[in-house]
């Protein structure tokens, strides 16, 4: 007989590995706090290795039970676990993360000690000392790598999940962390090749464009790259693969949601009301940023004669409300309470654009396999975007929704193999499955 406790026992149900992992992670946080209060400045290298080492080893220990367990769905105990079901621990983590964002954005000087621990790495990569954003980038990348490993372990039987998780880890580490740092070292503009307008809204603002073009050939290429990605690649890729090519394969926000946010995916609101709010909010943000961009260009073209400083104020407010408060504080800080994709669902203008393509002009759909749905609800429960997947599946309809990021978890957790992510012909993707027997029943 095999060891029962390891095969499908709930994670966090007290496996010694996971206790060890949690302890090491707690030590890492403790070391970070200690470093913040000064010692980080005095012994940067020591604290750097302590913090990074403890985080990594904590993550490895935490993932071991997933690696050792049999392949299969690992959702046992999620609804009873305080961490994943909005219990006291979840609220604690939410407050810790929200607090970190607030200090990071508006009171970075309190983090001085911690920022200094990143100096050795920053000097090596960028040729200059660390600031709060480098610290943030390092922690962000670390979280994606560690929790990405956990995700791969959890879904080790699914090549789709393994490949797309490696993809987000690669784009975060390479394109959103190392490359921008390297560019800086070469005295080039710090450019993120994996973010585009309207998510990285400033890339098509007159100021940024002017600055990039003036910085030389590479800068011109960056502007060109941004334009191509926004206006050519985005429609083509989304037509062929759905918005997932970006949201769950490339994007850094998506990467954090898919990895660090995975334990909380079930907390997204599935109600019709939430869907209505989502549509209003996300499209309002899109309209806001399109208008802001247009105004800035108009103003720059007329040399500031139309609005004077008003458009600048517009973009400042956008940066504060959407860029900082929404995408950071609420979007990530509220993971444990509102689910992992709050920002992507309610606030991201890029997701809004991709969603419009996906809904109206794309080959992507989640196909429902005939009349096989048993309405169990696993798909809806584990949809991080709050889509009521079951509502479509039980009617034999394909799921074609603007918000779907194509993570594929609904298909994985379905106990009857009903759902499949596909890029098929555009025609007929809204067709419903009707049993032939239903259409020609014998009439009496």
């Amino acid at each position, binding site marked *: *007989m*095999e*060891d*029962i*406790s390891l*095969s*499908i*026992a*709930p994670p966090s149900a007290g496996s010694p590995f996971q206790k060890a992992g949690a302890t090491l992670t707690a030590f890492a946080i403790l070391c970070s706090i200690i470093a913040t209060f000064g010692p980080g400045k005095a012994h940067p290298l020591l604290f750097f290795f302590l913090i990074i080492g403890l985080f990594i080893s904590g993550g490895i220990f935490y993932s071991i039970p997933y690696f050792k367990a*049999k*392949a*299969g*769905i690992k*959702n*046992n*105990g*999620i*609804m*009873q*676990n305080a961490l994943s079901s909005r219990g006291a621990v979840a609220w604690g983590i939410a407050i810790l993360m929200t607090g970190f964002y607030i200090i990071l954005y508006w009171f970075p000087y309190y983090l001085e000690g911690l920022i200094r621990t990143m100096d050795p790495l920053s000097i090596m990569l960028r040729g200059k000392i660390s600031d709060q954003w480098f610290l943030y980038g390092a922690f962000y990348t670390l979280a994606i790598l560690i929790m990405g490993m956990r995700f791969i372990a959890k879904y080790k*039987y*699914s*090549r*789709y999940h393994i*490949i797309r998780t490696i993809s987000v880890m690669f784009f975060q580490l390479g394109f959103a962390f190392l490359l921008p740092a390297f560019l800086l070292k070469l005295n080039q503009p710090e450019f993120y090749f994996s973010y585009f307008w309207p998510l990285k809204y400033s890339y098509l603002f007159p100021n940024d464009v002017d600055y990039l073009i003036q910085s030389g050939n590479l800068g011109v290429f960056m502007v060109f790259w941004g334009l191509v990605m926004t206006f050519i690649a985005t429609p083509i890729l989304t037509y062929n693969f759905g918005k997932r090519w970006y949201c769950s394969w490339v994007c850094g926000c998506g990467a954090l949601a898919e990895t660090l946010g995975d334990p909380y995916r079930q907390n997204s609101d599935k109600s*019709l009301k939430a869907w209505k709010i989502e549509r209003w909010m996300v499209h309002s943000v899109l309209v806001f940023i399109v208008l802001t961009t247009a105004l800035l260009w108009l103003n720059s073209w007329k040399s500031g004669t139309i609005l004077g400083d008003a458009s600048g104020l517009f973009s400042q407010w956008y940066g504060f409300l959407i860029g900082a408060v929404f995408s950071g504080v609420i979007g990530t800080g509220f993971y444990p309470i509102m689910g992992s994709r709050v920002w992507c669902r309610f606030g991201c203008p890029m997701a809004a654009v991709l969603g419009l393509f996906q809904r109206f002009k794309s080959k992507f759909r989640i*196909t429902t*396999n*005939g*009349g*096989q749905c*048993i*309405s*169990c*609800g*696993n798909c*809806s*429960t584990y949809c991080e975007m709050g889509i009521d997947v*079951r*509502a479509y599946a*039980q009617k034999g309809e394909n799921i074609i929704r603007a918000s779907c990021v194509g993570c*594929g978890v609904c*298909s*994985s*957790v379905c*106990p*009857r*193999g009903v759902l*499949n*992510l*596909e890029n098929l012909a555009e025609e007929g993707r809204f067709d419903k*499955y009707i*049993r*032939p*027997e*239903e259409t020609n*029943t*014998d*009439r*009496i």
Partner: protein
Amino acid sequence: MNIVIIGNGITGITCARNIRKLNSNASITVISEETEHFFSRTALMYIYMGHMKFEHTKPYEDWFWSKNRINLIKAYVKTLNTKDKILLFDNGKSIAYDKLIIASGSKPNKFGWPGENLNGVQGLYSIQDLEEMEKNTKNISSAVLVGGGLIGIEMAEMLHSRSIKVIMFVRENLYWRNVLPQSESQLIGKHIAGHGIDLRFNIELKEIISDDRNRVAGVITNTGETIECQFVGLTAGVKPNIEFLEKNEIETERGILINECFETSIPDVYAAGDCAQFRRPKSGEPAIEQLWYTGKMQAETLAKTICGDKSDYNRGIWFNSAKFFDIEYQTYGQVLPEINDQQKSFYWEHPNGKHAFRANYNNTDESILGFNFIGIRFRQIIAEEWIRERKTIGFVIQNLKKGWFDPEFSKAFYNDISHSYLQSLKFDFMNNKTLES
């Protein structure tokens, strides 16, 4: 028109929804003693395992019912007066109807085993059963399940998720052998055993023994062995839940007797789903259908009849699916546990024992009869089309890719299957040659 439906399971609710779709004026009332709102019975196991909460198992939000003017009453129907067309509830209230649909579902089978009513002995069908199971399995270490069907494997997985040791009695010599061919039975049985479930084949329950507090302490098998345990799951199938009709004139046998239009022996009273029994089942089809899918399909047809478009039930090409721990199973068409002499069968199994494929076909014209897919997802629409159009086994094997439904990037086995099929042809050919010479 005043329509009253007894039972808010998949059959009753599908009836109510479809009647509302066809008729916006009818008054529709659904009565249930189990829950206020419809939930997915198939998801009970996931509540216990912590994958979902009860709220997640409700396929419709609570506002759905009033918006669609479907009245919900939570009460137990005590008597049914078909003469005056009135139902009496146990709370003293009553309701009149023009047309009555009985969709009262099932209850777990009990076969009069000594000790079957002890504390800690139960089946699993309703939300109340689940609540009881939650209490009965607190802090226990071992359980015995009697019957190895689909509810049995669900209960095994549930108990296993809480690290409770499970012994499962299987009457046959292999797992689910009364439904599956031998190879599939072996494969699934091995997989279940690999998860630490102790399968005991050819074993039946003789008696359940109690401790001094009227709680289960163990079981005695038909071979005389005594096994200690703190919980016994009775999972040997279900039977129609029709006790409340006992003193009624509606004709019943095992279930409520109905014709092809779901009409009972009493005018304006219909029955469908688990509780109904066809008077004249079509050949090869069971008289009582106890599946989620059939409940849904029966209800869709019945709703038409209720709304004036009198329709015969046509189940169409058989399909079903299940999951055994981590292995999914889908079946389409006719795959009997043993083929008869007019049938041939092709079977392929992956060396890792986690994927298998079977196609049964006609001996004479080689037309396809049915499929089993294990650890493989396949398109229902394609499988049904091939069976309906009597495609040959050769065509099917060549075109398997068309119906492949496994997730992107997963390793596909249609080439392996086709290779193995060609090998088997070669083998047959050689055999025939040997016989001839």
